[in-house]
């Protein structure tokens, strides 16, 4: 009975235009009042425990680092270099777009920021060079999704946090699937734009681009090399990323002044202010569900229905694709990961591998109507109508689905580097 009241309450709150934070907060207050001896204050204790966690320090700092770098000219410099490198290759500019997204993803951790930072420059360049509007939009929207798969990735940090898996291992596991997606996107661009090439390499241009990107290129190496070289933890890497971003953009490139730095910081605070309450109340619900043994009960019940790994992968991926169409990656990860991860483990799926499958799957949600985030961002960034963008991303959704299937069925793509 209480369960139905909760569902009704959530629906009423959604009709009343309440934010996700209020939906989850009310759900947490309700379950603690109805099931835990009427102790709604437990929800506040959970909020306190959720935000008072060292492991979460990486999120605001990676967010800030990404925001500083997208405000400055790091993205532009990476793009210039990629354009010069790919000049003689058929469909080179398409490849440059994908590689620029991958390069910027390695420092931003966000899909929408990657799309905005690279798309803002590359969209016009692709059109000017005769690439179809449809391909330009599709490749940049899909390339943006690499932002949450290539480390550092905020959704992977959230998955690691909520399931207690190693974030460093999740980051390494993201590299193989990201390489697969880059290859698939690049191959599609190559086949579709085989006749387009910008010309032979220009030594002067290449040298100039290399020089301009001299301080931008080492940043991913510093972040990831520092983590895996044992120099600093993931959290400290995020702080290093902020300091490097400030040094490069404010002191070396001098593209950002102190006032803009303050604005970017406030902007990051705004984004975190919308994420953290969601995270905290999702954590609270998770604590309640775990204390009540819900994930374990679910594993037992579904274990009787689902017979084998393949069946689980199929059913869970369909569920995630549907959820990804209507819920954002962060909220979906925080709510579903604690429920699906024990199920995956019960089927013999490595939890790190499952985390990657989940994030790649939910990443497709960035491209799926009606509420794909990258579709909405692209509408604003490229000044195109919604359906033009939806049609443009359809081939890339198909490519991502194919890649997801391979990533789900071949765990070695994600786990080889982790095991080594």
């Amino acid at each position, binding site marked *: 009975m209480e369960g139905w009241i909760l569902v009704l309450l959530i629906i009423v*709150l*959604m*009709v*009343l*235009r*309440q*934010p*996700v*934070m*209020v939906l989850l*907060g*009310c759900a947490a*207050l309700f379950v603690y009042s109805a099931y835990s001896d009427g102790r709604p204050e437990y929800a*506040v204790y959970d*909020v*306190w425990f959720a*935000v*008072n966690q060292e492991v979460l*320090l990486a999120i*605001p700092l*990676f*967010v*800030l680092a*990404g925001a500083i770098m997208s405000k400055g000219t790091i993205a532009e410099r990476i793009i210039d270099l990629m354009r010069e490198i790919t000049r003689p290759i058929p469909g080179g500019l398409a490849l440059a777009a994908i590689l620029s997204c991958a390069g910027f993803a390695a420092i*931003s951790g*966000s899909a*929408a*920021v990657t799309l*905005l930072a690279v798309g803002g420059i590359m969209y016009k360049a692709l059109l000017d060079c005769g690439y179809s509007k449809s391909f330009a939009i599709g490749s940049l929207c899909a390339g943006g999704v690499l932002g*949450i798969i290539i480390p550092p990735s905020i*959704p992977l940090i959230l998955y690691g946090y909520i399931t207690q898996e190693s974030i460093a291992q999740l980051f390494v596991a993201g590299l193989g699937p990201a390489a697969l997606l880059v290859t698939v996107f690049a191959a599609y661009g190559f086949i579709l734009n085989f006749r387009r090439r910008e010309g032979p390499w220009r030594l002067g241009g290449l040298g100039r681009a290399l020089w301009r990107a001299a301080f931008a290129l080492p940043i991913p190496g510093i972040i990831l090399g520092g983590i895996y070289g044992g*120099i600093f933890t993931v*959290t*400290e890497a995020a*702080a*290093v990323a*902020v*300091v490097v971003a400030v040094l490069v953009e404010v002191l070396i490139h001098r593209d950002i002044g102190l006032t803009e730095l*303050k604005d970017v*910081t*406030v902007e*990051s*605070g*705004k*984004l*975190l*202010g*919308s*994420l*953290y*309450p969601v995270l905290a109340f999702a954590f609270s619900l998770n604590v309640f569900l775990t204390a009540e043994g819900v994930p374990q009960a679910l594993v037992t019940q579904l274990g009787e229905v689902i017979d084998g790994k393949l069946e689980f992968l199929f059913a869970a991926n369909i569920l995630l694709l549907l959820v990804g169409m*209507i*819920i*954002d*990656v*962060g*909220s979906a990860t925080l709510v579903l990961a604690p429920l699906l991860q024990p199920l995956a483990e019960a089927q013999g799926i490595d939890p790190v591998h499952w985390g990657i499958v989940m994030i790649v799957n939910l990443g497709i949600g960035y491209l799926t109507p009606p*509420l794909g*985030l990258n579709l*909405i961002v692209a509408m604003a960034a490229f000044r195109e109508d919604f359906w033009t963008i939806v049609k443009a991303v359809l081939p890339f959704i198909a490519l991502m689905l194919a890649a997801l299937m391979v990533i789900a069925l071949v765990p070695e793509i994600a786990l080889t580097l982790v095991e080594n």
Partner: protein
Amino acid sequence: MSTFLGLIGRFERFITVAAFALMALALMADVVSRRLFQTGLIGATEIAVVGMIAVAMFGIGVATDEGAHLRPRVFDALIPKSISGLIDRLASLVTAAFFILIGALAVWVVAQSASLGDRTEVMRIPVWMLQAMIALAFITNALRFLIYAFRPELRPSEDVEESAAGAADGEAR
């Protein structure tokens, strides 16, 4: 009313920027100290966590000021345009009620921690001081939404685009 909203907004933005700086500098100093002197800075991580709590909690107000909270929009089409304004007021009132309730519970939790004398592990900071940020953030947001309910013209429009660029990869739906 708008002056009051502006004041609390400025206060929260200031705290957010300062907290970010505190976080980054504390952790960076810890890394540098460990590399140079083979020993980390005692309490650096704890200070960074304090910064994060401030960003997380005061950031709620910054996000409210710019209409950046993530919201599911699947039922929006069900509401006739003629009563949309009324629903907006009601929405503000419901959100305010939520913040009042959770804020009151947060005040109770702060009082409990103060009476128990809990302190953080390393820096021995009284826990109630840190938890007070949670209570304060909820209360300032309750006030904001109460004001929006009675003066809807002061409520910021929902910023889909900006939220979309959310590095946390959430979105305003």
